[in-house]
């Protein structure tokens, strides 16, 4: 069975990859495989949600520290899922649930995130005092000053300064992205050759 899953996965991966280079010959087959993938991904979400419920219920059963939150999560999930099935995702009540609960909670986390980022920047020099950390902090502060609105209008020369700093940061970002693209390509090749098999075990 493991050999079959590996052979199927490698063949599917190769067909999808080759489909990009030889669209005339393989496009239709590639699209069929992509459609199957979308279906499986949809099922995976349901299995993932079952996993989420099972883990939270285990917390409740074992009376773990955050068991109470787990119970709230499961009850909310069942109510929302039930309402969604009965009323439909576009119903007024469903939209109200999103606007009144999910959006404010995520916005609150975003606010906490802003504070957390400021706190992390302040503590950066306590963790590491080296040239790159100091440069990182100075450039971040200068960027923030240059792009923030002031009561006196734009800071003179702000655009030129942003462009100058941007030249270095964009260059660095491209370098990082090239490295990541190379890493992604090699990781993909390992999976295509069946050397790394996160499916079915090896």
């Amino acid at each position, binding site marked *: 069975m493991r050999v079959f899953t590996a052979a199927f996965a490698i063949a599917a991966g190769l067909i999808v990859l080759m489909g990009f280079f030889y669209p005339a010959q393989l496009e239709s087959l590639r699209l069929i495989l992509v459609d199957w993938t979308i279906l499986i*991904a949809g099922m*995976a979400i349901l299995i993932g949600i079952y996993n989420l419920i099972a883990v939270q219920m285990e917390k409740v059963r074992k009376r773990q520290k955050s068991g109470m939150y787990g119970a709230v999560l499961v009850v909310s999930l069942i109510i929302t899922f039930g309402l969604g099935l009965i009323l439909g995702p576009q119903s007024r009540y469903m939209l109200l649930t999103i606007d009144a609960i999910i959006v404010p909670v995520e916005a609150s986390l975003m606010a906490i995130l802003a504070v957390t*980022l400021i706190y992390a920047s302040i503590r950066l020099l306590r963790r590491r005092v080296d040239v790159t950390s100091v440069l990182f902090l100075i450039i971040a502060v200068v960027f923030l000053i240059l792009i923030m609105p002031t009561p006196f209008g734009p800071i003179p020369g702000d655009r030129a300064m942003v462009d100058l700093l941007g030249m270095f940061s964009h260059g660095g970002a491209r370098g990082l992205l090239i490295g990541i693209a190379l*890493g992604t*390509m090699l*990781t993909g*090749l390992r999976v295509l050759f069946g050397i790394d098999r996160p499916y079915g075990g*090896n």
Partner: protein
Amino acid sequence: MFAFGLLVLTAIVFLALTFWRRRSPGALRIIDAYERLNRSVGLAVENGTRLHISLGRGNLFTARGGSALAGLAMLRRLAERTSVSDRPPVVTSGDASLAILSQDTLQAGYRAAGAEEQYRFSTGRLTGLTPFSYAAGAISAIHDENVSANIILGDLGTEAALLAEASDRENTNLIAASDNLSAQSVFYASSQEPLIGEELFAAGAYVGAGASHEASLNVQDILRWLIILAILLGAGLKLVGAPI
């Protein structure tokens, strides 16, 4: 056609180097974060504490899946190494397919170590499907599961700051890398030894995942040099006014 040729050439060089590395393993340069990771694994087994491994929310059906696959390769090796521990690692992710694969990888790791009975499906968890719900669920694992080290490896956004902060509050080791530039800058500010850029993809080689992972690093180095030469050549040609 150029891209296809480059891909085939890369594949041939990769396979050749993999066979070569099987015969003569190479020496890797020291990366402090991975040194700390290897120490943390040993300490967790000795202390009876857990590792928390977070694989991010990289969807495997997009280009972001590469970092998730790199994380899974590392997870496989860590599962084998911690199979003797009383407390198995907890793996969290923000993508359903990734969560299923993390369970499968954990099980395969235990099976390879001859300790399949150690596997619990609840150790591979989907914590949420949106960035913040994923972070909220992973934070709960950091606080409640007697974790001694947090290994965050994968595709995350700025919500990574919340995970780093939670790790700091619990006074646990943090080894973190991402393919996302925002998350990289967050980790740069909040971890002791940051991992930058493609160092994320070196995780497998540094936890002893095998010759293919070392060969991958060699191929990346070769390609990086080719790209540097191409950029310099292109800039030089442009400078002299050649049509490119």
